[in-house]
């Protein structure tokens, strides 16, 4: 039992390895001192209004495109696992897999070439880039639920809907959340690019900073973007902790 557990590395959601928080705190402190010396803090403070405004816009884009992607991706992934469509599901997944190798910048560019400039093409592109990991993980998560659980459930007299809601989805939730987590990380990181096609968000500070060769401006976009990405990740992980049954979460023992 012990060797089997040790042999399989399972990525963890929240729990940091015990020595890490201390290390991270020390590193942060050092970084803080360094940053202060470069005058970056003042730089950030002087742009604070821009930063909060653009962060808000940033997160709005994430919420809309990511929310829509979850709303579409999860049901679609579930649908693909239903016996009626299972024959075509593998082909659909092939297409999705190819789709997921397309770089996000290319998706944005293609979206712009079809829908023009503005928030709508930006949201559409973000939605498309976010959708694939969600569908894929929902699909594989449910397919990975062991056959014998379904058989036991059927033998106990559960209806197909009860099996889906009480056995298949709860046992796939961890994998589904991993997909949502990846997807939202990609989403937050791609939003700055959305600025390029007129989507707004923190990309404005980053790309303008690059263009004007003003590192301070660029960092006041880049640092909040990175922070938001890590925060989003934490939030999803927290929600997963709350929603996913302890009996399904790996690595807790």
């Amino acid at each position: 039992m012990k060797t089997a557990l040790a042999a399989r590395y399972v990525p963890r959601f929240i729990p940091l390895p015990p020595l890490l928080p201390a290390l991270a705190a020390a590193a942060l402190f050092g970084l803080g001192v360094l940053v202060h010396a470069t005058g970056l803090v003042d730089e950030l403070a002087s742009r604070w209004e821009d930063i909060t405004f653009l962060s808000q816009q940033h997160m709005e884009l994430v919420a809309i495109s990511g929310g829509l992607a979850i709303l579409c991706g999860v049901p679609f992934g579930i649908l693909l696992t239903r016996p009626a469509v299972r024959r075509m599901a593998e082909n659909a997944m092939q297409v999705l897999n190819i789709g997921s190798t397309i770089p996000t910048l290319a998706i944005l560019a293609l979206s712009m070439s079809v829908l023009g400039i503005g928030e709508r093409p930006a949201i559409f592109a973000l939605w498309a880039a976010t959708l694939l990991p969600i569908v894929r993980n929902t699909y594989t998560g449910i397919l990975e639920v062991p056959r014998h659980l379904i058989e036991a459930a059927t033998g106990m007299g559960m209806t197909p809907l009860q099996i889906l809601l009480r056995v298949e989805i709860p046992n796939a939730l961890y994998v589904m959340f991993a997909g949502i987590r990846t997807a939202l990380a990609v989403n937050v990181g791609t939003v700055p690019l959305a600025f390029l096609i007129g989507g707004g968000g923190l990309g404005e500070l980053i790309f303008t900073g690059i263009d004007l060769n003003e590192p301070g401006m660029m960092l006041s976009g880049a640092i909040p973007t990175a922070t938001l990405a890590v925060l989003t990740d934490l939030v999803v992980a927290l929600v997963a902790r709350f929603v996913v049954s302890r009996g399904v979460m790996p690595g807790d023992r």
Partner: protein
Amino acid sequence: METLRFIGDNASLILYLTVQHISIVGVAVGLAILTGVPIGIAITQNRRVADAVLYVAAIIMTIPSVALFGILMPVLSLTGHGIGYLPAVIAVLLYSQLPIIRNTYTAITNVDPALREAARGMGMRPWQRLWRVEIPLAVPVIMAGVRVAVVINIGITAIAAYIGAGGLGTLISRGISQTDQRQLVAGALAVSLLAIVADYALLWTQRRLTPAGVRA
């Protein structure tokens, strides 16, 4: 149609940018293999160190590429290389660490304990075990990590065009700023195609590298 003509007219430019793109990804992922695989093997010795290393690598992965470029720029400009090739390569190198380290680590720790035991029983030294049993079995899984790294980083390199690294992203960035549909679509298609082809080529390599006895 317009786009097709543009592609025909600028074939040599596109080819040049493609080569540039590949060279950034190739050099960086190559370096990433040289660092990531030994790290992945080394951390199999200690579970807590492994957790820590993988966690740090995972955090790097969550930093958006644009933000990472942004953070690298002022640091590297101290050496006079704030924009261009170097930050692109370093960013790609960093982003490649997680898939490669994680797959190496997982592959080595997943080697059946019975095999390890058998190898020890036959009198192999730890190094011999590593070279003759563990690494050969791990190669396909490591390759899968390399594949993931390459695909991710073809996309990231495209973004690096904005910090002057060149590559196919140049077409897209110019297309956007000049609202030139032809360049935009040509660039997007080229970079997508490159990612898809690289994915399949590496998948093929991965299968070839899988020992016949292990293939499913």
